């Protein structure tokens, strides 16, 4: 079978995945594990015990210097001035028209030192955008290739990471981080994640990431720790209605209709996209990103039309079976008039409308540390 001659990038854990017998797939230009034992089993392991994810493909940019704050206030939508050293926040890069370039997390490492984590498939686009806005007093570096990233997620995550770390990880609050060693490797221990479970994301030197991965899986073995692929990462985040860039949000979506208005802070002052988003807010939202569950038995998928009164009124952006809720669930854009909980909609599946209804989200109660 012929394959296009594209060279897929590999994370520092690629060889480890192959040894574990993972099924590898191309994802955003990377050769990534989609599953090891099976998506549903891995999903349940994260909800019930702990799972380790290779997310080293994600990008990291560092910003240093006296104008870092000014730059980040201008290019991101959240209020960076409110971010304390040791704290993380979720934020967005937007174009002038309010369209979303990417979603991201921003770390304040020191007074004039920040780290931005971006989606793997957007690294080049984001870096070009960031670079075009740099002033002279900001030293920005794309450290994506030298940085490994392991997410450890689930109710046993604190026990697992705590047992290998030289700092008290129990004292790290949600969306906070500390520098410390894990399995003897220095890095950033961040209490964040993309699953709705308690857990950590460990930023590590790429060359030593595999050492930490092996130790995590070995140390956690008796406690239910398993490697988890991108397949379960997707079902876990879907049950939380966490947006996935490229599926639920993109350059054609604005943060307000996507339900991300909570990270848009016009009160902080000028930023790119502010005027457009203030206009959207004033005019009212035409559509909204909502969660729905299927009433009739069918699986909604990305790109399927959302119907109301027999005509197409919106689009499914993500959909699957939710293993923890044991329902067929999805998220998509609907007109504001249909965004209320219990609104009756239909999803067009293979040419037929299948009944669905708008539900409260997250679909599954998050158990992150508060």
């Amino acid at each position, binding site marked *: 079978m012929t394959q296009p001659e594209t060279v897929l990038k590999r994370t520092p854990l690629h060889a480890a995945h192959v040894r574990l017998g993972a099924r590898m797939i191309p994802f955003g230009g990377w050769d990534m594990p989609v599953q090891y034992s099976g*998506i*549903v*089993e891995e999903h349940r392991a994260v909800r019930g015990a702990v799972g380790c994810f290779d997310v080293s493909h994600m990008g990291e940019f560092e910003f240093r210097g006296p104008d870092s704050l000014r730059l980040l206030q201008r290019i991101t939508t959240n209020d960076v001035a409110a971010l304390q050293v040791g704290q993380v926040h979720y934020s967005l890069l937007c174009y002038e028209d309010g369209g979303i370039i990417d979603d991201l997390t921003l770390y304040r490492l020191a007074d004039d030192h920040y780290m931005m984590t971006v989606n793997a498939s957007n690294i080049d686009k984001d870096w070009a955008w960031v670079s075009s806005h740099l002033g002279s007093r900001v030293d920005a570096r794309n450290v994506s290739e030298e940085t490994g990233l392991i997410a450890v997620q689930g109710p046993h995550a604190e026990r697992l990471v705590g047992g290998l770390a030289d700092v008290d990880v129990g004292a790290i609050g949600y969306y906070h981080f500390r520098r410390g060693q894990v399995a003897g490797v220095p890095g950033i221990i961040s209490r964040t994640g993309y699953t709705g479970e308690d857990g950590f994301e460990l930023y590590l030197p790429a060359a030593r990431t595999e050492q930490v991965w092996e130790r995590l899986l070995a140390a956690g073995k008796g406690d239910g720790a398993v490697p988890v692929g991108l397949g379960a990462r997707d079902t876990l985040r879907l049950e939380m209605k966490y947006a996935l860039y490229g599926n639920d949000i993109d350059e054609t979506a604005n943060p307000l209709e996507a339900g991300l208005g909570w990270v848009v802070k016009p009160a902080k002052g000028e930023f790119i996209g502010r005027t457009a988003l203030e206009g959207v807010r004033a005019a009212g939202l035409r559509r909204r990103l909502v969660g729905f569950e299927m009433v009739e*038995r069918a699986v909604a998928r990305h790109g399927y039309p959302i119907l109301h009164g027999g005509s197409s009124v919106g689009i499914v952006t993500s959909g699957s*079976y939710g293993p923890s809720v044991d329902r067929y669930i999805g998220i998509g854009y609907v007109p504001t008039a249909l965004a209320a909980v219990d609104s009756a909609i239909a999803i067009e599946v293979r040419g037929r409308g299948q009944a669905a209804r708008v539900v409260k989200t997250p679909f599954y109660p998050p158990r992150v540390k508060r």
Partner: protein
Amino acid sequence: MATYPAELRYTREHEWAKMEGKRARVGITHYAQDQLGDVVFVELPKVGARVTQMQTFGVVESVKAVSDLFAPLSGAVVEVNQELAQQPERVNRDPYGTGWLIVIELSHPAEAEKLMSAQQYEEFLKTAGGH
């Protein structure tokens, strides 16, 4: 159980057929269920529907993928595995047993000659089928 039982006949689309007199029981192979991963939804025809050899008769969906089902043989559907609506994972756990899909009353039993033996199917998987 053998990965590809010798008493079954196989299609290039990874369905199996078990001849039961003038009827054939139909399912998907071990290879197909393994490639799909966790099956979460199966859409099957109603009893009485006509199916045609190598035409689609339903859909199987895993967490990640939607896949058409192809009829190994032509005829009328006389049984449908209703258990799969509630327990689609049976297709993964027991693809040749409780994970069967439909039973067809054959209209052209001679079509079975066009299907592969287990040995031919395994050979096929090693070459063209192993995508």
